């Protein structure tokens, strides 16, 4: 059995699955249910200064696709709308009863040192294992110069991180916003400020859709809408890339990463680990199906690790990073060609029309004995994979790597006007 225990910047948990700071971790009631269900840790929904914020009614918008609900979710909820003392008392109670679980407290107070100095001892007194600085919330709080308004300015990230490190013994995790052009800048700032770890991604600024009857963005609040923060399975690719960017950066490589962004299954979890995460934060999947989803996440991850011979989470973390390279390092001599398994083919023609209309005219449509027949024209196929993606049948179209002779990257390529001389 694989060992799923984690030690994340000094914060221990029995498994890497934490609930992200969000509605599921807003109250003692929910968090106790989560721990009973088997979650390794929680990041408590962000605390702020009193008086608490006020949340609007109608808070979420869902992106549904072809019958699947909530492939993306956006929210316009703000931080915890309960008094600080209530949250603090509940955190203390929960931590006392679940000492083996990670209880991290998310914080967001105004960007002045006094505010941070004031709240840190209160949180520390709960016995919480660490804090997460919410520098990511992209709506509502950012207009008040908090959340993403801080996270988008590396100097502020560094400054607030440093205030926290100077005023608490607790490990400090800096939660990064993806609403920037280069994730390395705020990550380096967090490191410079002394952060013990980073977590990412926070939600992405979004308008989930438009109510065409009310002619207002969704969710509609009294006839109007506002932008919100986007999360769920659809944001996973963005998260993987940003996590990978940090994990492969020579300066940042040692900074622990808590991966967030659409993790819904053990497979997603394994991918986040492979790209450099060492704990995993989940929200949308739990909001969709309830806390019980963690059972399969743990089982599946453990079984996969056993099958692959990975004994610990550390064995998986960052496994794919040495193969996550800039485009310039890809071998341009590599070639792969699509192959259609004629026995598996159901003759839907989707590969043909995708290639014919939008790619390389590399799939011929013919009739053989009156039956529809689709065949790859090897000479025309550039190995783009589109046909394999549109094919509705698993493993019907596979990509066949061709023999490769040597390596040629773009910096050396004859077509590159700025090519470097090849050593003779």
């Amino acid at each position, binding site marked *: 059995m694989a060992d799923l225990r984690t030690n994340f910047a000094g914060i221990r948990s029995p498994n890497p699955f934490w609930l992200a700071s969000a509605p599921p971790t807003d109250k003692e009631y929910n968090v106790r249910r989560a721990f009973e269900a088997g979650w390794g840790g929680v990041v408590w929904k962000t605390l702020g200064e009193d008086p608490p914020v006020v949340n609007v009614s109608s808070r979420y918008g869902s992106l549904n696709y072809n019958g699947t609900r909530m492939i993306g979710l956006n929210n316009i909820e703000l931080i915890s709308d309960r008094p600080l003392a209530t949250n603090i008392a509940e955190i203390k109670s929960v931590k006392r009863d679940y000492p083996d679980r990670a209880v991290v407290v998310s914080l967001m107070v105004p960007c002045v040192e006094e505010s941070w100095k004031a709240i840190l001892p209160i949180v520390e007194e709960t016995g919480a294992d660490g804090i997460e600085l919410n520098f990511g919330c992209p709506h509502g709080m950012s207009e008040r110069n908090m959340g993403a308004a801080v996270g988008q300015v590396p100097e502020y990230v560094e400054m607030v991180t440093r205030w926290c490190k100077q005023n608490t013994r607790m490990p400090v995790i800096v939660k990064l916003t993806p609403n920037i052009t280069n994730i390395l800048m705020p990550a380096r700032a967090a490191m410079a400020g002394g952060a013990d770890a980073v977590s990412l991604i926070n939600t992405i600024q979004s308008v989930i859709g438009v109510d065409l009857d009310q002619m207002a963005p969704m969710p509609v609040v009294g006839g109007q809408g506002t932008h919100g923060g986007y999360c769920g399975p659809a944001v996973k690719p963005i998260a993987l890339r940003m996590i990978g960017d940090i994990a492969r950066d020579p300066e940042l490589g040692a900074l622990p990463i808590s991966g967030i962004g659409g993790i819904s299954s053990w497979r997603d979890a394994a991918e986040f680990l492979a790209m450099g995460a060492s704990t995993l934060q989940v929200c949308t999947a739990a909001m969709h199906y309830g806390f019980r989803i963690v059972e399969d996440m743990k089982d599946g991850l453990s079984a996969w690790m056993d099958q692959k011979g990975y004994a610990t989470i550390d064995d998986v973390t960052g496994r794919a990073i040495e193969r996550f390279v800039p485009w310039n390092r890809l071998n341009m001599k590599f070639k792969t060609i699509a192959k259609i398994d004629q026995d598996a083919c*159901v*003759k*839907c023609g989707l590969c043909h029309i995708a290639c014919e209309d939008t790619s390389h005219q590399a799939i011929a449509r013919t009739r053989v004995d009156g039956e529809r027949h689709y065949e790859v024209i090897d000479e025309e196929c550039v190995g783009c994979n589109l046909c394999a993606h549109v094919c*509705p049948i698993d493993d019907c179209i596979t990509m066949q790597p061709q023999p490769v002779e040597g390596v040629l990257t773009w910096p050396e390529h004859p077509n590159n006007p700025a090519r470097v001389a090849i050593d003779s």
Partner: protein
Amino acid sequence: MPQGPDIAPGRLSDVELAHNFSDAHPPLTHAQAVVEAERCFYCYDAPCIEACPTGIDIPRFIRAIATDNMAGSARTILESNILGGSCARVCPTEILCEQKCVHNTREEGQPIRIGMLQRHATDWQMEHGGQPFARAPETGHRIAVVGAGPAGLACAHRLAMHGHDVVIHDRHALPGGLNEYGVAAYKLADEFAQREVDFLLAIGGISFEGGRTLGRDMTVASLRRAYDAVFLAVGLAGVRSLGIEGEDLDGVMDAVNFIEGLRSSSKQTVPVGRRVVVIGGGNTAVDAAVQARRLGAQDVTLVYRRGAENMSATTVEREWAQTNGVTVRLWASPVRLVAHDGALAGVAFARGGLGPDGRPAYDPDDTFVVEADMVLKAVGQTFLPDPLEGDSIAISGGRIMVDETGQTTMQGVYAGGDCTPGEDLTVAAVRDGRNAAEAIHAAWMAAGK
């Protein structure tokens, strides 16, 4: 006193009859339709389209259901097949579009329910959308259509769309043809046939003249003189007889007449035998047998002279009969109708099988009797050429000869539907009518008329 066969109306209560003759396959809810539509792969060059005689762009109309473009979905269907609503209900989709669905390859027997989706879209149109097609400016051309069944209606609608004026002549009081008088009631429940006709005629430019029989009230030649073109969609007016002893006994009748009587009267008044034998293996036999059961017949036996694989009723139809409590007996050929004291008592059959020469063979010494109060003959319908006597319209193989445009050997006279060669399906009749209309229109356009 000799007792007559036990044939009586009103074997069931009004409530039971209403239930038995309501929609056999209730429609999908919109939510169910969307789930089903989303299963569709939206194939390119889809095999289902090719399998549809009217060539409906099925993936397109299904995608429109998934995207909630109901008007577009219905229009896609109706522009190929104006009787898409009844075809959705009566088509043997299991041997047409749904048989070719690529999902069958993936998961046997789980094709997209194309017929049910087509019904969903066409129902929407009839409930919400009004007539989706507008007539072209009037041309002044007049066409006579003979027969108000699916072929005649489809032809009339398409001609009207092109701006021509159409008069449909039919021997029945109501238009609709087999949809009104020939199909099982539960397939086209809630007066669907008439509602569809009303919807179709709403395009304008079409008038209906009922109670007019070809050969009696008019001839093709007279119509040809009075109109610019004629379309014959007279169907199959003849029925085959068994050619055995006792066929004239009371209680022995043609299944088509039984069904027509049932379709055109209150179910409470339709007489049905306590024990019914249906002879035949087609959809008419199944429709007659199941409806006899649903009228309250205690025992209904459908007897076919060959094997299940030879029946023209599909497997789905045969199983439908069986789940409705109809006993299906195969490889039995009727030899005589049995009478007791001059009254129908049953049917004697000879058992048979495939002979050594590969042809069916029956043993006249190996017989059995199925007791019956009523015998319904469904051994085939035939084209009756008599009304065309005197016209220069060639008949071949028992059907009206037509060229690829649907034109008969008489210039300006076209024909389609069951009276012409090809499969006898509602959807094929619609195709024939539509194509003949296009051919008539194209000929006038080419002639600059």
